[in-house]
Every structure is written in C-alpha cells, then in structure tokens.
C-alpha cells in the first residue's frame, strides 16, 4: 500500500482533547468540562466536551451556549482547587433559568482540572 505517511490527521471539530493537550503543552492551566448525562431537549449529547484555560481560552461546548458561562466560572474554581465538580442544570432548577437553559432540557457536566 502506497500510503503517504507525511499526511497528519486534520483535527475534527470534536477533538477537544487534542486542543486541551496543545494548551497544556504550551504551559496553560486547563480544565475539561464533559457532558455526562443529558435529558429532554438538551442539544449536546453525553460525551460532548469543552476545554478552558485560566487565561480565558475556550473551545467546544456542553450546551447550545446557554450554560457555558456558568461552567466557565466553575472551571476557574476547579483549576484553583483541583477538585472535580459535577454541575447539573435543568428546567426544574431555578439556576437553569438564571444561566439561561431555556431549551427545557437538563444536563449534568463533569468539570475536571487537567493535571
């Protein structure tokens, strides 16, 4: 087989771990948020990821843009303490409206520091 091994895989839009690895290699403090469960009309399935840095970089998503801000706040805390957190946002939860999960879905997000 005449394969051109010079070709490196182009990064898919879902390769958030690759982005996190690059940031970490560049010396950034990194947190990774992962959808671990979703219900109803939540737009992003379990396994969806977002990577964030202490310096404010952000790639990927854990919702349609509704809870990313709140997750980013939690991620800053996780990057400080090193302790993972599970955040749950849902239509029955008043905080969901506060952060704007208007889709009527419910989502649980694991936030881990990359160490």
């Amino acid at each position, binding site marked *: 087989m*005449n394969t051109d091994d010079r*070709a*490196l*895989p182009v990064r898919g839009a*879902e390769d958030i771990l690759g982005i996190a690895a690059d940031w970490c290699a560049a010396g950034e403090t990194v947190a990774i948020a992962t959808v671990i469960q979703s219900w109803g009309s939540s737009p992003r399935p*379990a396994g969806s990821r977002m990577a964030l840095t202490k310096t404010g970089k952000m790639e990927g998503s854990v919702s349609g843009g509704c809870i990313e801000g709140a997750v980013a706040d939690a991620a800053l805390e996780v990057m400080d303490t090193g302790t*993972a957190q599970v955040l749950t946002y849902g239509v029955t939860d008043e905080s969901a409206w506060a952060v704007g999960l208007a889709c009527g879905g419910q989502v649980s997000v694991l936030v*881990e520091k990359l160490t």
Partner: protein
Amino acid sequence: MIYAHLLRLRQAAAEREPVTYAVRLADGASFVLPDQAAPPAINQAGADALEADRIGVVEIDGESWFIEARNPAPRLVVVGAVHIAQALAPLAVTAGFDVTVIDPRTGFAAPERFPGVRIDTAWPDEALAALQPDARTAIVTLTHDPKLDDPALISALRSDAFYVGALGSSRTHAKRLDRLRALGFDDAAFSRIAAPVGLDIGARTAPEIAISVIAEIVGARRGKRRERGA
C-alpha cells in the same frame, strides 16, 4: 483528568483502539479501561459500554461512575482524488470521520491537493483489501472511471461498509449495474448503493455535492437511510 490519561485517550484514538474513560463522580478518581489496576466491575462496565457504544452515568457497587465508550472513529474511504473529493475530505474530517482518499493516478492524488488527509495510491481493490472496511466504514466512489470505480464497488459490496455511494448519472449507474450483474451481484447488493450519490438538495458545484454526500453519510450512520426509488 490526568494528563497521562489524556495522552492515552488520544493515542488510542490515533491507533483506532477501543477504550473507555471512567470517572468516579464522588471523588474524580479515573481509569482508562481496560486497566488491570481497575476493579473487575469497572473493567466490565467499560467493556459493556464499548459493546453498546454508550456514554453515560452508571451505578457500580453503589457508586456513580461516568463511563465513556470511545470506539474508533467512523471511516470514510473516498475513491477518486477528484475535485469533489477535495471538498468532501475536510467536511468529513470536521464531522469526525477518519478519511482516506484512494487514487492510483498520482497527478490527482497529490498530497498538496489534500492537506492533512491520508492518501493511498494503490489500485482501489488492493487499497480496500488493506483497509478492511467494517460496519463503521463508508465508501464513496467519485472517479467516473469504471476501471477505478468498479473494483472499488466490488470490494465495497463484499464488505460490511454501512454506506456505499457511487457518483454518476442514472444512465451511468444503470450501465454500472449491468456490469456488476454480469459478475453475479443482485438487486439486494444494488440496494446498498446510494446512486445518484448524496441527498437531493439540487447540488451543482463540487462543494455542494460534497455537502449532499456527507449529509447522506451522516444520515446513514445515524439510522436515517433515505428511501430510494427503483
């Protein structure tokens, strides 16, 4: 997430090795499975998740674990390093496919025409034999040349590929089916071929055709196979 785990997950993805990422939600303890150091029940949960291709929270011995099956990425094999392939390859990569473009015509299969995409300049039947298409593989032929498309389609129809598409007009396709019928393929095999290729969105340009093709492949992967007329 431990950096070593992140590297292990990326390595597994690159080598198409199925693994599971497991996190105990109570304290963030984690494993990349299979792992001899992990409790048997956790390894079993990882194996079950891979089998079902499932991602979610599982209760194991009274504790909640996030269990993430990470099966190898679906593959797209494009036969014909033509203009439409140049538009299709990056769309497929963005959608998470592991893309290989096959074309023995090295003028077409020039690396600079396909940045970042694997190129194979073997004949399509040899290249496909090496790639061993499975149920997570889509194959689309784009050369318009029976010398190249036919051997590829023959290999594709003998494989478990979840999608087989062939570019060409209805007339071209009818002639193609006559040739394949002479080789012993029947209507059941022909019903697997998406032709004319792609969703009918009135595509005209190469990028538009590429969009219609990737949309059809995503639909096939997600169980939304289009009904085709006879």
